[in-house]
């Protein structure tokens, strides 16, 4: 008891409460840098979306919802946002299920687990810039490997302008995104699988459960929280996709692969800070609602069942 009372960090009972400055000194440097260079600009972005301002002149003038009215009436804004949602819809299905199956397969084998995990995760370590340039060359119309392979196997009729065709450009960028993201889901699922007690799988084998029964009745339910995390991660990356598309297509051709972050970047480049911050705020609100809404829904569902 005496030891507990004298331990640092425990508030001592006494008539006068003295504020201990020590904890604040420990957090102060982190708080300062974080507030000035991260959270502050986010808050400022929200406020500035209601004012007329640009980088050059310091004058500001309250404009209310004018910037929001503009972007909500801008077809290009909806075009870009729609592409983010297409990306999101594909991203929560394709890289996530690829990651799940590959993780289950690696879990099922005995030899070479580490090698397969390391090799399949490799694309995920690269900068979006490297990923984009690798795929820019794969898609290249005459020096690219994709069209060359199609020619070589006699499918020359299927060669495409993968990045130049407005109907294909967005999906071509999505393939590059998938190449670099399924490994992320895979290693997280694999870690989740290794946390499941092997007793359950042994019991299932004794009962004669096949691969699919084990997958749907044991693995997927046991990975409930891991799924929540992996899908939330996809919400952030799909709604904030930038580098891969910026380099592969720049949002083109004719805005066919435009996304919100490229729209915002273009607006900043044109010194249209009002429109840029309004669009960024709308996107941020969507991301926050989608992610917290999804997490709350998953928590509610696991409680109610």
């Amino acid at each position, binding site marked *: 008891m005496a*030891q507990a009372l*004298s331990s*640092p*960090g*425990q*508030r001592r009972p006494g008539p006068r409460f003295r*504020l201990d400055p020590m*904890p604040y000194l*420990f*957090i102060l440097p982190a*708080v300062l*840098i974080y507030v*000035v*260079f*991260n*959270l502050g600009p*986010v808050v*400022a*972005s929200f406020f500035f979306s209601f004012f007329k301002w640009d*980088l050059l002149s310091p004058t500001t003038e309250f404009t209310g919802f004018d910037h929001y009215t503009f972007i909500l009436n801008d077809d290009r804004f909806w075009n870009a946002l729609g592409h983010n949602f297409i990306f999101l819809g594909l991203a929560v299905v394709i890289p996530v299920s690829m990651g799940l199956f*590959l993780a289950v*397969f690696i879990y099922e*084998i005995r030899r*070479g687990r580490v090698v397969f995990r390391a090799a*399949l*995760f*490799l*694309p995920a*370590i*690269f*900068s979006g*810039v*490297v990923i984009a*340039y*690798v795929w820019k*060359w794969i898609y290249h119309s005459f*020096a690219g*490997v994709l069209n*060359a392979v199609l020619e070589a196997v006699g499918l020359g009729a299927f060669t495409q302008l993968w990045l130049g065709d407005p109907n294909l450009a967005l999906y071509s960028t999505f393939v590059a995104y998938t*190449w670099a993201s399924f490994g992320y889901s895979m*290693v*997280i699922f*694999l*870690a*989740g699988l290794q*946390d499941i007690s092997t007793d359950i799988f042994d019991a299932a084998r004794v009962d004669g459960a096949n691969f699919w029964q084990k997958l749907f009745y044991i693995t997927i339910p046991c990975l409930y929280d891991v799924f929540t995390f992996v899908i939330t991660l996809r919400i*952030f990356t799909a709604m904030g996709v*930038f*580098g891969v598309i910026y*380099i592969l297509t720049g949002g083109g051709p004719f805005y066919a692969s435009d996304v*919100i*972050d490229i729209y*915002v*970047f273009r607006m900043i480049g044109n010194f249209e800070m009002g429109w*840029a*911050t309004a669009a*960024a705020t709308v*996107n*941020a609100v969507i991301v926050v609602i989608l*992610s917290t809404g999804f997490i709350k829904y998953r928590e509610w569902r696991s409680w109610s069942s």
Partner: protein
Amino acid sequence: MEFLSGNTQRRLRSLPFYLVLIVTTVITLVPIVWVFASALKSNKEIRENPLALPSEWHFQNYVEAWFGASFDQYFFNSIFITVTSVAIVLFLSSLAAYAFAKMRFPGNQMIFFVFLIGMAFPLSAKLGPLLSLMYELNLANSRFGLILVYVAGSLPFAILMLRAFFQGFPQELEDSAALDGCNRFQFYWRILLPLSKPSLMALGIFVFMGTWNEFFQALLLINEDSKRTLPLGLTAFQDEYFTDFALSFAGINITAVPVIIVYIMFQRNLIEGITVGSLK
């Protein structure tokens, strides 16, 4: 299958898994191998036969890419910015995480929550004001400015991860250190940090990768060639040499190789950093 031994049965059962894994791995790695092979070919060979392996090895592509563009400068900038950012993030986040995990003070929960909020927003939500702030503070176009932005971006995740780790430390450790006359900073510096080496390592590699690869904010804040990082320099290089196929491939590889080396060396730490941070 009764006549087969248990061992053989198990091998047969895992055969389809191996097949799928091998095929997927080959498809995943082919683009990387192809980019490395193409960097050793001549332009003529790339254009006429994109699928073939190099007939003779043109290592001069790398020499020309390295000296023709400012890759030495980009490389130095990336190393300097990344290493400094990682060191600052590790120091500041461990200090703060220790306070959040082990000290009681008014506002502990609330301030920690404010850090968490920072992870909820997409990057674009801060870019406009960030750009004008950096110009106001004379930190635009500056390596130091970029370091501050990267540190601020990495702190929330780093604090979240280390706080969870520090919470697992037994209180007795701190109590007995206090009895021996150790103040809280000494405890942090001499006991907590050395005992946390594996976690700091995993976090450090994770932050290293994220910072080394970052592109969006660097693109916004840096426009002088001498201050570009590798990803940014690669875009400038590709814009300039987009007709010189072989040099383009060599440039991609120069940017990719350092990450591959770090990955091979610290693969376990990196994956641990990702999974521990996400499952706790």
